[in-house]
């Protein structure tokens, strides 16, 4: 449906996209992920020509959209866009926001357009907000209206530019469900997002962008569980793990737990026995790590929940007794019963524990 060939986008001092090649099929839901500044949004905006490209081409149904003869009017009717900050027209109420493009741009009959808009409002359960102005809506409601506005012109492709970043964490699921719903109707969607769990849940393909190219692509499972390339691995691990600095002298166990719980809930990660995880972390931190730490510098603790297990990493252990003198039996017992693997990485001054989930 969409084919991107050797796409290059240059600014005077940076080149966010150097050589993008991709084929997007009908019904695909693709998440674009990657570190900041790797041109995810730029790529998205090139697809509906909000940005111009330096070279390369994008074929939509086999025709190059950068051909001067190509109708930009048609392109924008067929490719809708949803923005991070919603960008609803502030001077129009909800129903007019949805109807304005079909009526004044695509010459739809006013009564049909109104009927369609009402159906949409009904489907997205916003029927009572028909006459509200954007400033009267909550963030999640605004985003729903923005999606309705985009699909009111019957597009084939929807581009989402960070649709969840301006929303409450609890609203993220709401948008996720809408995208799932739309994908059932064979809409093709491209989503730029920073929320990896969201990307994982809604999409069938993931593009990891780095170094100006699509560095790695695959199914969510491939990218999140078995990334092949080094940069992808680093990115996935870093962005999917909990990280906190702790210090022997001013250690607050309950602060650590509450931060961890907050992180896990934000990520939508479910741990079957959270209490066990807390217990292990408590014993490990106090009775194994702090006891063998010879200085009193900050230590970094990282927790990552994988599909089958949980990884806990303590790093920055510079002056450390790696021989482990642990006298307390009870804590040894607890630790040994849960830990399935323990790697001591002296070179990088860290210890990696693997826990059964």
């Amino acid at each position, binding site marked *: 449906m969409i084919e991107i060939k050797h796409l290059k986008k240059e600014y005077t001092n940076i080149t966010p996209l150097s050589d993008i090649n991709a084929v997007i099929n009908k019904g695909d839901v693709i998440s674009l992920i990657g570190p900041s500044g790797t041109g995810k949004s730029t790529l998205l905006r090139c697809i509906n020509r909000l940005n111009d490209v330096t070279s390369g081409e994008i074929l939509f149904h086999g025709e190059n959209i950068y051909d001067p003869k190509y109708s930009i009017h048609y392109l*924008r009717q067929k490719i809708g866009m949803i923005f991070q900050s919603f*960008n609803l027209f502030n*001077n129009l109420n909800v129903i007019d926001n949805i109807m304005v493009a079909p009526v004044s741009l695509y010459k739809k009959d006013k009564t049909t357009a109104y009927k369609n808009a009402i159906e949409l409002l009904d489907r997205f359960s916003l029927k009572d907000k028909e006459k509200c*102005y954007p400033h009267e809506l909550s963030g999640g409601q605004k985003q729903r209206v923005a999606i309705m506005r*985009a699909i009111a012109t019957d597009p084939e492709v929807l581009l989402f530019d960070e649709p969840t970043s301006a929303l409450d964490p609890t609203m993220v699921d709401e948008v996720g469900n809408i995208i799932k719903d739309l994908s059932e109707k064979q809409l093709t969607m491209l989503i730029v997002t920073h929320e990896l769990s969201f990307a994982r849940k809604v999409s069938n393909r993931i593009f990891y962008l780095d170094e100006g190219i699509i560095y790695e692509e695959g199914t969510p499972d491939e990218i999140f569980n078995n990334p092949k390339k080094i940069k992808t691995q680093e990115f996935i691990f870093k962005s999917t793990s909990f990280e906190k600095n702790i210090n022997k002298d001013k250690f607050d166990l309950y602060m650590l737990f509450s931060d961890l719980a907050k992180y896990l809930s934000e990520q939508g990660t479910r741990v079957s026995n959270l209490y066990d995880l807390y217990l292990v972390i408590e014993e490990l931190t106090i009775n194994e790590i702090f006891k063998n730490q010879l200085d009193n510098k900050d230590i970094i603790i990282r927790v990552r929940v994988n599909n089958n297990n949980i990884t806990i990493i303590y790093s920055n252990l510079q002056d450390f007794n790696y021989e482990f003198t642990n006298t307390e039996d009870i804590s040894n017992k607890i630790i040994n019963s849960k830990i399935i693997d323990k790697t001591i990485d002296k070179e990088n001054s860290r210890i990696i524990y693997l826990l059964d989930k």
Partner: protein
Amino acid sequence: MSFSSKNKKGLNIDIIFILIIIFIIIILCLYFFVFKKKNDVNQIKSIEDAKHSTIAVLTGSNAENVAHELFPEATIQTYNLNSDALYAVDMGNAKYGMALEFAIIDYNLNSGENRLEFVGDALDEKYTGIFFARNEINKKVLPLFNEYIKRIKSDGTLAEIDKRWFNHGDEILVFDFDKLDNSNGTLIYAIDSTYPPYTYIYNNQVVGFDVEVVYKFCKEYHYGLDVRPIDYSGMLVGIKSGKYDIGGGGNAITEERKKSVDFSEPLRKNKMCLFAKYNKSDNENITFIQKIKDSFRKTFIQEGRYKLFIDGLKSTIFMSIFSILLGTILSFAICLLRLTNSNLINKFCDIYVSILEGVPILVILLLFYYIIFNSTSLKGEYIAILAFSLNFSAYVSETMITAIKAVDIGQWEAAYALGFGYWTTFIKFIFKQSLIQIIPVYKGEVISLIKSTSIVGYIAVQDLTKMSDIVRSRTFEPFIPILSVALVYYIFSFLVALVLNRILLKFNWINKNYNKN
């Protein structure tokens, strides 16, 4: 926010409150008008004393020259209206004044009592004549005119005319300038409409001693007349620049003036006198109400003067409305030019705005009238509209562009992404959203424009303010004309602001709430 929506009751209370304040101001003004300063009865008045005192004179008049010459150490106060100079002495703002003998007599007659008295003998005596510009047409007209004057002097016609205008109580002659046969051409005749009995306005008609002489000359020699009532100083500039062919009346013939303009043969002799406030008022027992009634009658009823105010108001409204319309179109155009983001165009707009913001509007007006459009016969009203709209556009375009640029860029992008083009996006979404910022500032500019039209008297436009000057010069009573003009300006501005507020409410989505219950 200042434009919060008012319910009907709130609005009424506002209006009542404003009316009460206006009423109080009027009462206070009238109070001071009646209980004006009283002069010390025992003051000594002499020419000797005047040398170290204050002297009120008409700006640019012969009196001003004489005052500077004879009383170099005195403080000279200059007024734009002869009647204001007289009134200043009456009110005690200046101890002495200097004016022509007949003007002082006229003042006392009009007041119905002796308010001013002469101090000493006449200081100066000058022949008066009519100004002639040094231009092509006058090479032919001036000799003919002088020949005509000599003739009417010898056959007694001039004496008859003199009697008609300088002996009060005679019937006033009215002239029909349109019926003149203009087979030899049309002369542009500028007059100071506040200089009775030489040149002034009576019953909405230009009349006076000199007007009659000029009219009779034109009738006999087949010239048409285009009469332009104008401010005295404006008339002088216009004659010097050759914009007007002939000007004024009762102008003292002096050597200095002869350097830049020509004079007709002398028509009359005028005495310049020093005067001061009369020590004792004859009518101390006139009541407050009577005084107001009398003043009101003089200002509006007598000689049908209310017609002058109506004409002036028409002119003010005409100029204001068209300046606002043209100015708004211009500002919008400048704004669109600026949106092109071209460096050259932006530079041009910057220069345009900085010049029009940096030069006072009065100076721009004079520049247009006497220099840029000097050779054209464009009416003062149209030149004023042009000057005001340019000035207005400079301010408003800046506001517009700021408000437009303040609209979130995301609004542009969202519209583009839906398929809207540049212009539709701009009109449908961006401009409509920026109106919420533009209109409050725009309202201020509109009101300031309406008020600044009061300066057009300088370029021969008879607006509301000028009309009040004309009436004041006849009645010698400033308060009622000034107060009523102030009130009319306020009401006009208030109504315009009300209309703009209504428009703002229409575009103000922030106050549009939809509550189902």
